C-alpha cells in the first residue's frame, strides 16, 4: 500500500522539480483566491466598484465640457461679422466664412433695410437664409418656416430688378414677426413692401416670435431680398463651436480673411458660457474627488480586513522559513493582481455608466476615453498596495507562534 503511494509522491516531486520555481508563487496566489472565494470576491467587488466610479467620473469630467458647450451653442451666434461703418459685406464674405469654419459651426447672413408698407408705415425688412437661421437661432418660435427661394431666381437677379413693376408675377413667401403681422397683414393675406420705388409682394408663410427686435420685422429669403433691394447682406452671425481658445482662433482667421469687416465677439454669450462651464466643472471636480476618496476608502477597509484575516497563512509561511522579502513580494503581487483585475473590469463598467449618464442626461453618448485607463489602473494598484502593506507591516512585528496560537 505504501509502495504506490511513495511512487506517486516521487512522481509528484519529480514533476514539481521540472516546473520553474515561479509556479509555486503563482499557485499560492491562485489558491489563496480560490480557497477563500467569498472574501476574495468581496475585495474584488469593492475594487471593481471603486474603479468603475472613478472611471465614470473622470470620463464625465473630461466630456461634460464638450456636452455643455453644445447646449450653449443653442444660444446662437457668438461671433458677429459686420461691414465696417455700416457698409455691406463683400459678396464672397459668406463663402469665405463657410470655408473657414469648415464644419466647426454655422453662419447665417442678414441684410436689413427699412421699407414701407402699402399704407406708408416704415418697417424693417431682413433678408436671410432660412435653412441656416433655423440651425443657428433655435430659440426662434416659428409657426411655419418659408421655403428658401428657388435658386434660379438668385442667379439672375438683374432682369427682375430692371422692370420692378413686373415683380408682381409671383409673390414670395415671408416670415413675419408677431408684432409686425397686425401692421402688414392682419388677416394673413398677401401684402406688398416698397423700397426705393421697387415693390416686393409677399405672402406670410408663418410668424416668428423671439421677444426681441425680430418680432417687429419681416424676413424674406436672401435671394428675394437682394433682387428686390439690391442691398447685399451687411451682417453675418456665426455660431462657432469649440473652446474659448478655438473661438478666438476662428475670430483671428476671420479678421485676416475678410479685412473689410469688423469681427465682434458676442461677449454676453461667451462670458456667460465660460462662467457656467467653469462652475459646473469645479462642482464636478469636487464631487469626483469626494466619490473617488470614498471608493478608495471602501477598497482600503475591505482589503485590510482580507489581509488581516489571513494572518495565519502569513504566520505559517514565516514559520516555514519564508523571508521577509518573499512575504512582501507575495502580498504585493496579490494586491497588484487584484488591483489590476478590478481596474480593468471596473473601467469597462465605468465606461458603461458614463455612456448611460450621457444618454439619459445629454441625449448623446459620452465617448469612452481610453486615456483614463492608465490613471485608473495606476490608482487602483496604489490603493491595493497601500491597503495590503499597512496590515503586513503590523503583522511583521508579531511572532508567528503568537498568531498561530490564535492570540
Amino acid at each position, binding site marked *: 500500500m505504501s509502495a504506490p503511494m511513495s511512487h506517486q509522491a516521487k512522481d509528484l516531486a519529480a514533476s514539481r522539480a521540472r516546473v520553474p520555481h515561479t509556479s509555486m508563487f503563482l499557485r499560492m496566489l491562485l489558491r489563496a483566491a480560490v480557497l477563500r472565494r467569498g472574501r476574495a470576491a468581496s475585495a474584488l467587488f469593492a475594487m471593481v466598484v471603486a474603479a468603475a466610479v472613478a472611471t465614470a467620473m473622470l470620463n464625465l469630467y473630461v466630456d461634460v465640457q464638450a456636452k455643455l458647450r453644445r447646449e450653449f451653442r443653442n444660444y446662437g451666434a457668438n461671433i458677429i461679422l459686420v461691414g465696417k461703418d455700416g457698409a455691406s459685406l463683400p459678396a464672397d464674405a459668406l463663402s469665405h466664412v463657410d470655408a473657414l469654419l469648415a464644419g466647426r459651426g454655422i453662419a447665417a447672413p442678414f441684410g436689413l433695410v427699412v421699407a414701407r408698407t402699402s399704407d406708408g408705415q416704415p418697417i424693417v425688412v431682413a433678408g436671410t437664409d432660412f435653412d441656416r437661421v433655423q440651425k443657428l437661432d433655435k430659440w426662434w418660435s416659428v409657426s411655419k418656416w418659408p421655403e428658401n427661394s428657388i435658386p434660379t431666381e438668385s442667379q439672375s437677379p438683374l432682369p427682375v430688378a430692371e422692370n420692378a413693376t413686373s415683380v408682381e408675377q409671383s409673390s414670395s413667401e415671408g416670415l413675419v414677426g408677431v408684432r409686425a403681422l397686425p401692421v402688414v397683414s392682419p388677416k394673413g393675406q398677401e401684402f406688398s413692401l416698397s423700397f426705393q420705388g421697387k415693390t416686393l409682394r409677399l405672402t406670410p408663410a408663418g410668424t416668428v416670435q423671439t421677444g426681441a427686435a425680430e418680432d417687429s420685422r419681416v424676413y424674406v429669403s436672401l435671394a428675394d431680398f437682394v433682387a428686390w433691394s439690391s442691398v447685399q447682406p451687411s451682417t453675418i452671425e456665426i455660431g462657432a463651436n469649440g473652446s474659448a481658445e478655438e473661438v478666438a482662433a476662428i475670430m483671428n482667421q476671420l479678421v485676416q480673411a475678410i479685412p473689410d469687416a469688423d469681427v465682434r465677439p458676442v461677449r454676453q454669450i461667451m462670458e456667460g458660457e465660460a462662467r457656467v462651464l467653469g462652475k459646473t466643472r469645479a462642482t464636478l471636480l*469636487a464631487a469626483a474627488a469626494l466619490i473617488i476618496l470614498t471608493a478608495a*476608502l471602501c477598497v482600503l477597509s475591505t482589503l485590510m480586513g482580507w489581509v488581516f484575516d489571513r494572518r495565519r497563512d502569513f504566520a505559517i509561511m514565516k514559520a516555514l522559513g519564508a523571508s521577509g522579502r518573499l512575504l512582501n513580494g507575495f502580498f504585493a503581487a496579490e494586491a497588484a493582481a487584484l488591483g489590476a483585475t478590478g481596474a480593468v473590469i471596473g473601467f469597462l463598467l465605468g465606461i458603461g455608466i458614463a455612456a448611460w449618464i450621457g444618454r*439619459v442626461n445629454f441625449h448623446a453618448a459620452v465617448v469612452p476615453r481610453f486615456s483614463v485607463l492608465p490613471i485608473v489602473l495606476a490608482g487602483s494598484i496604489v490603493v491595493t498596495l497601500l491597503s495590503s502593506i499597512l496590515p503586513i507591516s503590523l503583522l511583521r512585528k508579531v511572532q508567528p507562534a503568537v498568531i498561530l496560537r490564535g492570540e
Partner: protein
Amino acid sequence: MFARLVYESFRRQKRRKLLAGAAIVLGVTVATAMIAVATDIGDKINRELRTIGANLVVTPQEDSLDLEIGGVNLKPPTDGAFLSEADLPKIKGIFWHNNITGFAPMLPVSVTVQHQGKQQDVTLLGTYFAKKVSYGTEEFTTGVRSTHPWWKVSGAWPKDDSWDVLVGERLADRLQENAGGVITVAGRQLHVSGVLSTGGAEDDQIVAPLALAQEVLGKPGAVKRVYVSALTKPEDAFGRRDPKSMSGAVYDRWYCTPYPQAIALQLTEAMSHSHAEQIRQVAQNEGAVLTRIEGLIFLITLAALFASALAVSAAMATTIFERRAEVGLMKALGAGKLAVAAIFFAEAALLALIGGAIGFALGGVLAHEIGRSIFSSDISIPPVLLPVILVIAVMVTFAGSAAAIRRAVSLDPVFALRGEL
C-alpha cells in the same frame, strides 16, 4: 449586562470602532455635502446664467413697430408709447419678487454730438446704473451693473443722480475722447466719467442716467423698455399652456410657479399699459442648460450615495468579521443567536448615530466650503435633513453589518474559539 457589554466593547476596542466610525463619518459627510450641493445647484447655476443678460422685457402695450437696425433706432424718438418710471418699483411687488434679481429701464434718445466743429448723430441711452429704489419698506439697488454684467467700463461708472455719461468705445475712438473729457450733447456740456465696452450696439452710443435722457427728450418719467432679470423654472409642457384656458385651481398653480410666462404675466399686471415677454434667446436656452446640469449633478449624487453606502458596509463587515472569537466565547457561555445579534446591532446603531451626527456637521462645513469656493455664495443644509441622514446612516450600517453578523452568529463556538474558521 447588555448595556455593559456594548459599553465595554467600545472602551476596549477603540481601534476597530474608530476605523468603522471613520468610515461612517466619511460616508455621511460625502452624502450630506452632495445632497446639499444637488439641492442647491439649480439656484446657483440659475444665478450664473443671469450673467447672460435679462430674460424678460417689458414694453409699452400700444407701441409702434421697432425700427432698429444693428442697435440703431431709426424711429423718431418721441414716436410711440412709453412706460412710466413711477411703475418700476412695482416690479418688486409681484408674487415672485424674490426671484427678480434686477431690472434696468432703457430710454434711447437720438441726439447730435458736437465735436471739434463736426456734428454727429448718435443714440443716447438713458438707464439705471446702480440705483436705489424702494418699494414699501424694502430697499434695493438695481440697474445695468447687475443685469448687464458683461458691460465693462474703463474709468468710473456715473452716479444715477449725476449728469455724467459713459461713451461707447467705438464712439470714443471716433470722438477721440477719454474718461474725464467733456462732450457737447444737444447743447449740454456733459462730463464723461468712463468709456464703455459691451461688444454690442452700446459701443456706438452714449449711456447716461435715465433722468438725463428724459430731460433731453423732454418727457419726464418716460421709459421705453425695461429689462428684467428673473430666476425662472425651466419651461415644461404645463408652463407652455395658455393661462386663459385654465380653470381656477390649475391657473393658481401655473401662476404660482416661476415659469418665464407666469412672471411675464405678473409684470404685465404690475405695470400699467405694458406688455412683458420672455426674451426667448435667453429664457429658452437657460432652461435647457439648467436641466442638463441639474440632471448631471443628481446622477452624480446618486453615485456618491452609493459609494458611501458601500464604504460604510465594507468597514462594518470587516470589523465584525474580526470578532469571531468573541462571538464564540459568548455563545460558549450560553448566549443565544438573538442576544449576540442584538449586541452587534446595538453597537452598529450607536456607531451610526454618532458617526452620522459628526458626518452631518462635517458635511455642512464641506458644502459651505464648496459653495464659497466655487459659487462665492453659501450652500446651507436645512437642519430637517439631520433625522433623514441619521435614519439613512443607521439603515446603511445595518445593511452592511447584516451579512457579517449572520455569519458570525451561525459559527460553531468550538471552531471560533480555536481560532479556525
